[in-house]
């Protein structure tokens, strides 16, 4: 489905009614269930999250419990929104976060199934909100460079190959939303970890901690309970920032080299 498709003509504005089948769960300790809601008179120019805002306002005014979901910047750059919509992380549009998904992607009368990211490493906090602090701990394990503080260094002081800088930047575009984990049949976080490792491994600033970074981040990834990568490519297909699966191969190389060459 194209960003302009779904309801007919080019950017045609109209109001639609959709039925929502949404996952409701009190907390990580209780069993959840699907509940059905009617979202009526929804503008096709609304974002998917705005549609949820409207629905939640109606639920609150009716004295019912609203649906809990994660959101922050609503500009597609923070990686906070996380909904598995009609069997796809972030919904039907390619390279789009849930907050940038618009209701023109859906047809009048359509039933939309909305689920949380499902992975043992991402336990449900409530409804559609999951705990993604496992990603934070992976970053803490090695997704950084250690530098002495002081005056800012001239940006051009260290020469960087343009192709490597571009590849590093492309990997750095990862917003850590977790769609890769959600889509992977193994709940693997390899695309996320590989993006973070690649981002720093290609730059001279990341060179000093290159080996320990790969080893420590993978060790933390395993500790958090993510699965292994079997190169199916589902992660790449759903990534809102189009992070390439080739980064995973690079992480494999970094990890193997670090494992074979480490002193300890």
């Amino acid at each position, binding site marked *: 489905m194209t960003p302009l498709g779904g309801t007919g003509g080019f950017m045609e504005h109209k109001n639609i009614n959709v039925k929502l089948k949404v996952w409701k769960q009190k907390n990580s300790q209780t069993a959840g269930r699907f509940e059905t809601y009617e979202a009526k008179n929804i503008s096709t120019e609304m974002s998917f999250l705005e549609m949820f805002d409207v629905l939640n306002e109606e639920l609150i005014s009716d004295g019912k419990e609203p649906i809990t979901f994660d959101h922050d910047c609503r500009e597609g750059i923070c990686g906070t929104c996380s909904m598995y919509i009609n069997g796809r992380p972030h919904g039907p549009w390619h390279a789009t976060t849930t907050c940038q998904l618009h209701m023109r992607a859906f047809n009048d009368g359509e039933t939309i199934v909305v689920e949380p990211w499902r992975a043992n490493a991402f336990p449900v906090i409530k409804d559609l909100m999951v705990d993604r602090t496992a990603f934070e701990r992976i970053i803490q394990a090695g997704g950084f460079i250690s530098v002495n503080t002081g005056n800012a260094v001239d940006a051009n002081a260290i020469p960087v190959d343009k192709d490597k800088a571009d590849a590093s930047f492309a990997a750095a575009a990862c917003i850590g939303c977790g769609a890769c984990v959600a889509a992977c049949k193994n*709940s693997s976080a390899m695309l996320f970890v590989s993006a973070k490792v690649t981002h720093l491994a290609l730059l001279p600033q990341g060179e000093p901690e290159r080996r320990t970074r790969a080893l420590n981040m*993978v060790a933390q990834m395993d500790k958090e309970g993510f699965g292994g990568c079997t190169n199916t*490519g589902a992660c790449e297909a759903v990534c809102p920032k189009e992070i390439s699966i080739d980064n995973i*191969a690079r992480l494999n190389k970094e990890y193997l080299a670090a494992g074979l060459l480490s002193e300890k």
Partner: protein
Amino acid sequence: MNWSQLFTSTIGKKIVMSVTGLFLITFLVVHVGVNGCIFKDAIDSSDNGDMFNRAAQFMARNVVIRIMEYVLFAGFFIHIIQGLVVEFENRGKRKRGYEVNLGNRGSKWYSRSMGLLGTILLLFLLLHWWHFWIPSRFTHAGIEEPVLLSNGFIGHDMFSLMKATFSEWWIVIVYVLGCISLAWHLMHGFQSAFRTLGLHNKKYLNMVNALGIGFSIIVPLIFALMPLSFKLGWIG
């Protein structure tokens, strides 16, 4: 990091799968090369399987091949056990599945079905061993009469054993299905093995992808033609 950690992490387990998988791929090249000698009979009807029997006899008396047979079994064993471990561990990482699955929108069905395809191949392998490896090495059932080869050696008449085995349609069909499973298994496994070993350069990845597709089609096709050729009377 010690050696144990290197091979027991999620990446390490895949490295083991990759190395053993690539080793088994090299075995397939040897296997299809030796067994392909049966097709000499299609070109020269007087051959009567002599070229194949000579190749089989060479493999049986070559000390390097005999040693490599143990390495091969170790390769099979590790690949199968590790494959099952990886499959079940990964399945356990999502306690509750989705109401609506991503399915083919995100990946190819065969890349998601390596465990299933591998299990089918394991069952096929057991049958294959029962038909050929066990008679040739232990029981000699169906090859009791030794055959004098054109190079002066005396060997087992494996060609006749193949002919007799593939005289039944159900066996031919099972072997063809086994070859189809092998093709799909290789279609993903070939390129995935290189990625797991860290091949990330686009130039080489494109080459490996093309090579993998070619290998996945050609090798299983040659294997599948063997039972079909016997049954359809093209050879023998």
